[in-house]
């Protein structure tokens, strides 16, 4: 192989040399080369070692899935040499060798191949005791590139894009489709995975002056210049998802393209013939040889033998001749030539054409092709080994057939059926908005491809309501069969490869079928055909033909396997996201930070867990906050609570239908606890309802429930059509809870309103001004002290906070965080929905039966609760006290309660109460254990049992005197 004089349309830039290194040897290529083409230009023929037998391999298809040329490039494993542009100072190593390409010490495996048939691993290495040893051995023997765990993180941009028509594949038919759709008025994006557009029109040529080349180039230019066409090369359409959603993968980014219609013009994969030695470096597909010639100006060989079964093979032979390559012979699998004119031309130039002949064997010398051995076909399609003819050559060019590159069509939901005339699969009915043209559509002749592309482009535009002036052209029928129905030949010594990724030979298929794996999906899994990196692009069609022959079925009945995304391997860096997580902050966030808050995540909210105090540790700081609330006054930001307004004539009736309690009898200016259950009667949320007026309610939900509760209420009223409006004001309103015996003193300093017990009693709600800020003030007692929940517009929150902190400074006001609040409510025995309840807890079990008013006409969950009320309860939420001892600090939430060796409950909350001086908690227990005074055993993380005692909650101020009637300051 050597570089030729410049060829028209070549992709390389001869003014820019690129030096690179393969396994320590320095080579030079040109800008525009792929790694493979540069190596071919430098006469390197062995590009890789095969996966299983470590056989030398060279160029096979040069169609971006030559998996036997995978390289390690610094920390990048499994770089595809035929698809990767050459870059300066690349240092490359072949994967899967021990000692390099030429000296691979695992070459011996090739001689062991008769002892390593398909299924050998399944049968030989399943022993449980020895398996780890075998696994280690095989992992070392086989495998691909090395993953570096110290690689720097690569950030890969993700983009979104939109178009009317996405054309996938910029070959003759795709270009034609893009122009037709764009001329009809569509905004078109056309992508191609290759560095340049043109597809087969850039290489399936006879000589440099083939009009196919000129006409393709003309269409590339027209696409590039068309105002409504965006032509993107080096871009792989990696999959086809629902509603025309296609990931477009480039080297350094991924674009998520939403198209209104998709034209799939992905062409066809040329398929190898199966004969002994069909993997010897020097044996290559005709399309590979012609890509080397026309794109990279590399002579693929000096003396070629051509194995043809279609017109493409003859054209390739003439093309080689046109570039000064000696063609020693053409063997045609057919009895009559696939191309009469070309056959006559070859004959006139003295080149022997052997009709009805195949290749019996390709023989290597020093790892590369030395001879092709031809043999005539017998009437049953086998080769006559008695009449062989040996021809010396360094290249064997194979052109016996194609398989449609239908991966994306399958993913889009198309059905394919086998066309006996073409001897390959073609698309049947296509899903709406998906179109196919060119070779993937079974259209091969150049003129026909142009017409088929135009038709598909017009149909795609028409599907979008765009109408072109002219009618769609008629696509002429194929006059010549592009694929041979069975280019597969057995040989007594094997080494006739079907799958080049996985080193599967013809006999492996016979063995698999004999063992009962005679369905295409079973065959695939047993032999691993099509499961290597090329995903069957070289092998699936032949595997289907072989299975059909072995089982005596028609190919249509055998079918194909599923083609899953991605079309080519996609680096994980392209798929990895940025770890984007929403985090919300309340309007008081800057105040918390200024006060040294230690923040925690509660749902999406960043909330103060506690406020750090110099000289105090976490627990110390939390205890100080608790004691401040109990003894003087504390202030907590509760703006994360869900806040919803319901107003209208049916507002009260609506609340009665969605919550378990009664609200119609509330007087304006009062509040009430509210509990929400689902249809099964399970607790899902709770909060406080304030009646602001006859038809006006304002209520809170849990922090985590705000979005879903609001959404569910709107859904229910969509059905019920009650006369009320529901507004979510969670983000609009801020809220703080001012709590402690001195809370009223603080508040009185900031308002002219009468705060006396008579005017503003426990559970009242008032709209008044605090520090000049209009506020809704709810007098509630979640933490068990005199408390005011003050709700203001979010933009007044900081002013309110500052005023309260200043007014309370003399009284020792302290901000307190989520941890202190949890402890304070635990001392009061108040449950937290989602912590002390779970997805099965009903109100009776949680001790909130008092909040359920069964005598209402209807509420969500009522009927289920009526059933549950009749049944004995399964569990009960009760207070527990840990018996003082060493292990009390090891008891944590979710630890199990064990009774007679069985699970009998769990701890839902537990903490040390600084107010009471002991560990307290809540536990969900089996009813038999739930009696006050009962001793229970809690199993902590290390398995030890810790004793606790069931007690009556609340633990603190059991009759609620402090929150209802605080002593006067």
């Amino acid at each position, binding site marked *: 192989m050597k570089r030729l004089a410049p060829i028209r349309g070549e992709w390389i830039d001869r003014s820019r040399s690129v030096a690179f290194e393969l396994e320590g040897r320095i080579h030079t290529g040109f800008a525009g080369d792929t790694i493979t083409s540069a190596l071919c230009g430098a006469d390197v023929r062995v590009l890789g070692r095969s996966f299983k037998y470590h056989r030398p391999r060279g160029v096979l298809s040069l169609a971006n899935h030559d998996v036997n040329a995978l390289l390690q490039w610094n920390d990048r494993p499994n770089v595809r040499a035929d698809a990767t542009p050459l870059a300066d100072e690349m240092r490359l190593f072949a994967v899967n060798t021990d000692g390099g390409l030429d000296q691979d010490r695992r070459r011996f495996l090739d001689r062991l191949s008769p002892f390593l048939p398909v299924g050998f691993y399944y049968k030989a290495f399943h022993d449980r005791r020895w398996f780890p040893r075998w696994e280690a051995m095989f992992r070392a023997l086989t495998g691909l590139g090395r993953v570096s765990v110290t690689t720097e993180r690569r950030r890969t941009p993700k983009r979104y894009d939109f178009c009317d028509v996405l054309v996938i594949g910029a070959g003759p038919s795709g270009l034609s489709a893009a122009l037709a759709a764009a001329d009809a008025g569509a905004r078109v994006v056309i992508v191609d995975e290759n560095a340049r557009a043109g597809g087969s029109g850039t290489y399936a040529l006879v000589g440099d002056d083939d009009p196919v080349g000129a006409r393709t180039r003309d269409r590339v230019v027209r696409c590039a210049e068309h105002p409504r066409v965006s032509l993107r090369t080096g871009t792989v359409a990696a999959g086809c998802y*629902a509603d025309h959603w296609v990931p477009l993968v480039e080297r350094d980014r991924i674009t998520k393209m939403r198209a209104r219609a998709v034209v799939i013009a992905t062409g066809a994969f040329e398929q190898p013939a199966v004969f002994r030695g069909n993997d010897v470096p020097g044996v290559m597909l005709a399309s590979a040889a012609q890509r080397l010639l026309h794109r990279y100006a590399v002579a693929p060989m000096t003396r070629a033998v051509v194995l043809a079964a279609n017109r493409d093979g003859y054209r390739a032979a003439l093309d080689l001749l046109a570039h000064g390559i000696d063609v020693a012979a053409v063997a045609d699998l057919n009895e009559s030539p696939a191309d009469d004119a070309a056959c006559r031309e070859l004959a006139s130039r003295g080149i022997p054409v052997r009709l009805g002949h195949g290749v019996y064997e390709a023989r290597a010398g020093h790892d590369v092709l030395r001879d092709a051995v031809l043999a005539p076909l017998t009437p049953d399609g086998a080769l006559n080994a008695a009449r062989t003819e040996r021809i010396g050559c360094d290249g064997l060019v194979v052109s016996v057939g194609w398989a449609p590159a239908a991966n994306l069509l399958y993913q889009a939901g198309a059905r394919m059926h086998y066309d006996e005339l073409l001897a390959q699969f073609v698309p049947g009915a296509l899903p709406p908005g998906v179109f196919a043209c060119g070779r993937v559509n079974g259209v091969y002749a150049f003129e026909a491809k142009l017409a088929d592309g135009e038709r598909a482009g017009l149909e795609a535009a028409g599907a979008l309501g765009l109408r072109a002036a002219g009618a769609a052209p008629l696509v002429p029928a194929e006059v010549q069969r592009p694929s041979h129905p069975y280019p597969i030949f057995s040989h007594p010594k094997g080494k006739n490869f079907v799958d080049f990724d996985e080193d599967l030979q013809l006999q492996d298929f016979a063995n698999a079928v004999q063992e009962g794996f005679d369905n295409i999906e079973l065959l695939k899994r047993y032999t691993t055909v099509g499961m290597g990196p090329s995903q069957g692009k070289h092998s699936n069609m032949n595997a289907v033909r072989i299975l059909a022959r072995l089982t005596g079925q028609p190919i249509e009945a055998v079918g194909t396997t599923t083609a899953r995304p991605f079309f080519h391997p996609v680096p994980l860096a392209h798929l990895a996201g940025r770890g984007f997580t929403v985090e919300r902050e309340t309007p008081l966030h800057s105040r918390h930070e200024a006060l040294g808050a230690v923040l925690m995540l509660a749902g999406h909210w960043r909330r103060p867990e506690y406020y750090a105090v110099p000289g105090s540790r976490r627990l110390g700081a939390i205890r100080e906050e608790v004691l401040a609330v109990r003894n003087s006054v504390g202030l907590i930001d509760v703006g994360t609570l869900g806040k919803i307004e319901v107003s209208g004539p049916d507002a009260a009736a609506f609340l009665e239908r969605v919550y378990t309690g009664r609200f119609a009898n509330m007087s304006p200016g009062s509040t009430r606890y509210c509990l929400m259950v689902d249809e099964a009667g399970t607790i899902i949320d709770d909060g406080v309802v304030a009646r602001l007026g006859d038809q006006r309610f304002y209520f809170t939900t849990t922090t985590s429930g705000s979005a879903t509760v609001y959404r569910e209420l709107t859904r229910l009223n969509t059905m019920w059509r009650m006369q009320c409006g529901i507004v979510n004001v969670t983000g609009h309103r801020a809220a703080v809870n001012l709590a402690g015996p001195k809370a009223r003193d603080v508040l009185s300093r900031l308002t002219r309103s009468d705060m006396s017990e008579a005017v503003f009693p426990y559970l009242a709600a008032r709209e008044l001004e605090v520090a000049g800020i209009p506020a809704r003030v709810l007098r509630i007692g979640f933490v068990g002290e005199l408390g005011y929940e003050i709700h203001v517009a979010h933009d007044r929150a900081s002013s309110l906070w500052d005023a309260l902190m200043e007014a309370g400074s003399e009284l020792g006001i302290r901000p307190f965080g989520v941890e202190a609040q949890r402890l304070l409510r635990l001392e009061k025995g108040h449950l937290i929905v989602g912590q002390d309840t779970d997805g099965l807890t009903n109100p009776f079990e949680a001790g909130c039966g008092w909040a359920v008013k069964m005598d209402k006409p209807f509420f969500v969950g009522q*009927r289920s609760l009526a059933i549950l009320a009749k049944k004995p309860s399964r569990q009960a939420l009760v207070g527990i006290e840990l018996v003082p001892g060493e292990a009390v600090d090891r008891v944590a939430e979710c630890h199990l309660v064990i009774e007679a060796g069985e699970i009998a409950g769990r701890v839902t909350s537990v903490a040390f109460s600084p107010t009471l001086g002991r560990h307290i908690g809540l536990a969900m227990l089996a009813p038999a254990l739930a009696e006050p005074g009962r001793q229970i055993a809690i199993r902590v993380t290390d398995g030890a049992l810790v004793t606790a005692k069931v007690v009556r909650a609340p633990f603190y101020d059991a009759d609620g005197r402090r929150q209802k009637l605080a002593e006067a300051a």
Partner: protein
Amino acid sequence: MKLLHCPVNGPRPVSEFVYWGEIRPMPDPARASDAEWADYVFNRDAAAGVKREWWCHVPSGVWFVAERDTARDAVLRTYLWGEGA
């Protein structure tokens, strides 16, 4: 990513929506037996076919009905509650 047609906002990516289950008529709570009620609350018909489902376009809060063929994962039509007939 699939597109879903919100009856108010038009076609939007499915990530903007939440699904809230099949629409099933609630039996009269006063008349249903305990067993009938439990069947309504807990049992779902998972057979593939055309289902009427609740969907919500979250950014705009629009609840609507989607008729979806779960065998083909194809949305046949969408409409606001009460407008289907």
